[in-house]
């Protein structure tokens, strides 16, 4: 059919000739779309509003109102157990600036992110390069490396807490037997070892994800590039350095941003494995917020801490959103 029998707003519009509808409103979007009056357009599309209603309701209460409420909380001393919830202006923010434990929690969080993100990305890249080779068992290997990603985080944390156990843990047992250490290490209660221990566990849990993203990236690199490099006399190392790694840039960027965002929010491992100890060495920002909200019951200060995290994340979430939009072609 040359003329589809489709009734759309733009098709229907020219039918109405004469009167005020036909006058084009210059300068305001497409003239056709604005033909109808606002109430008429709302009425015509009323079912859309009905469809949106349940979602919007939940969204308004638990996200929009919640964000506004969070802002409100930061200006109040809001204790669950006390009836009085006075307005305190910027006191919470000022307290935060002078709170040494907060500073410590930021440093701990940065330590965690700074170590766990590059480590799991590097391991993931290495594994991806290996399991991308034409091996018969590579499907098996891929699944093996991906299994920790599928495991619930709490389970991984519990399991590793046992592995790190000073008396019965497998780490101490094998390290002692291999004569790498002489005395059992108290992994999670040693103030210098606790954070590395948590990081190691997180790398184990996250590497499979990096591997899969890198694998997808690797499989999208055109083989011709390698052929060309080979003709130019590039060895394996140079092909990796000058073809593979530059071509994986989008994957790397994605993993970096996602990794930073999720690692800055680390909580579960800390809660299960160390409780923020020893001497606050593993108290991360979210764990510190949790303490203030649900141990000391000061919702105002806890919300202020949450906003500090929000600020740290902002750059990365903005970047993430842009990546997501680019990727899905918006």
């Amino acid at each position, binding site marked *: 059919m040359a003329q*589809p029998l489709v009734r*759309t707003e733009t098709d229907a519009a020219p039918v109405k000739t004469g009167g005020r509808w036909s006058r084009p409103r210059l300068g305001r979007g497409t003239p056709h*779309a604005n033909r109808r009056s*606002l109430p008429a357009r*709302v009425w015509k*599309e009323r079912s*859309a509003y009905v*469809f*949106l209603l*349940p*979602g*919007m309701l*939940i*969204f308004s209460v*638990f*996200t929009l*109102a*919640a*964000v506004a*409420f*969070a802002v409100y*909380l930061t200006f109040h001393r809001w204790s669950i157990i006390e009836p009085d919830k006075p307005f305190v202006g910027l006191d919470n923010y000022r307290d935060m600036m002078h709170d040494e434990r907060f500073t410590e929690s930021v440093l701990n969080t940065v330590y965690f992110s700074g170590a766990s993100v590059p480590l799991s990305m590097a391991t993931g890249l290495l*594994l*991806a390069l*290996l*399991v991308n080779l*034409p*091996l018969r068992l590579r499907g098996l290997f891929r699944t*093996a*490396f991906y*299994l920790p*990603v*599928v*495991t*619930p*985080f*709490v389970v991984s944390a519990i*399991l*590793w807490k*046992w592995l790190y156990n000073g008396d*019965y843990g497998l780490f101490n047992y094998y390290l002692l037997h291999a004569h790498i250490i002489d005395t059992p290490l108290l992994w999670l209660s040693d103030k210098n070892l606790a954070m590395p221990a948590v990081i190691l566990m997180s790398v184990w849990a996250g590497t499979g*994800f990096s591997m*899969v*993203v890198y*694998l997808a990236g690797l*499989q*999208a690199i055109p083989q011709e590039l390698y052929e060309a490099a080979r003709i130019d006399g590039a060895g394996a190392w140079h092909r990796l350095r000058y073809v593979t790694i530059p071509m994986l840039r989008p994957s790397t960027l994605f993993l970096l941003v*996602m990794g930073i*965002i999720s690692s800055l*929010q680390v*909580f579960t491992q800390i809660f299960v494995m160390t409780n923020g100890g020893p001497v606050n060495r593993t108290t991360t920002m979210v764990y510190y917020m949790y303490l203030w*909200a649900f141990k000391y019951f000061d919702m105002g200060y806890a*919300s202020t801490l*949450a906003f500090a995290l*929000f600020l740290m994340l902002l750059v990365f*979430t903005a970047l993430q*959103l842009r990546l*997501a939009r680019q*990727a*899905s072609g918006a």
Partner: protein
Amino acid sequence: MSGLDEGVALREAVPEALEPTPPARKPQNGNNQFGLRQKVVTYVVLAPLAILFLAPFAWLISASFQPMGEIFSSVPHWIPKDPTLEGYKGFLNVGHLTTFQQGQGHGDWRWFANSAFVAVSITVLQTFFNSLCAYCFAKRRFPGRNAIFLLFLATMMVPGQVTLIPDYLIVQHIPFFGGNDWLGNGGHGWLDSYWGLIMPGIVSAFGIFLLRQYMLSIPDQLLEAARIDGAGEFRIFRSVVLPLCLPALAANAIFTFQGAWEDFFWPLIIMSSPDKITAPVGLALFVVQNRTSWTLLFAGSVIATLPMIIVFIVFQRKFVQGIALTGIKG
């Protein structure tokens, strides 16, 4: 929680590369480049790595069949000498329970039932409401659409931790529930109830965003044709739009289920009755409260992991289509 699960969604969204039989590439870099020697070397590197990655799982499964005495022996046993089903029986509430056993968490099969109920509810409801909203944003033209959609996008940048505390207070003050009056005071609202676990999770800005991007590719003519055939707006959504985005819906549902099953922070803070908590919270509290029945704990960990592994194995191929949504094409 809209902010929290976006990380999970992206984290889980990519296992395209896990496909056991990868596309076309095989013959290209197969024979001419990759000799027997390289193959052996690769296996020699990969095998120990895979063993390291899998060892914690092997230990978990083995230990879940070991009696307490064996778990706490000075030499770790990889094959249980004296296998027992005590741990599994404990959770599945088999036989008569002594008070001591109950105190140790025997009979807590409800944790898993709760997790299953909550995760399935959230998955079904969220898939439905997300797609309904996504459809309106993608295919309907109504006044206010862009403004509302921008609002959704903007809140995607807010991390879950910011809304966590206000949401806790909002849930506590839901009117008419849990002994609350119409102003939401006097009782505990949705705290410690399945309502509180499920309701905030039934829409996700991120899920809506991904589904919308997918729905944009549905040709308008299809919807118009249905409209001309006299289909109502909901009918169009149900019979034309939904069937066309099954892959996206499946991906959304899988990630939602995984996220809901693993979710830890939210159930941790709002649930308190031992018979209402979900599996991750139950297991974590088990550890944090220093209960000692590790046989039980390991068995519970295995039970909590199984659904994730089953979902992963069954839907492995569906994940492939999920990748198009997050768009990591390298």
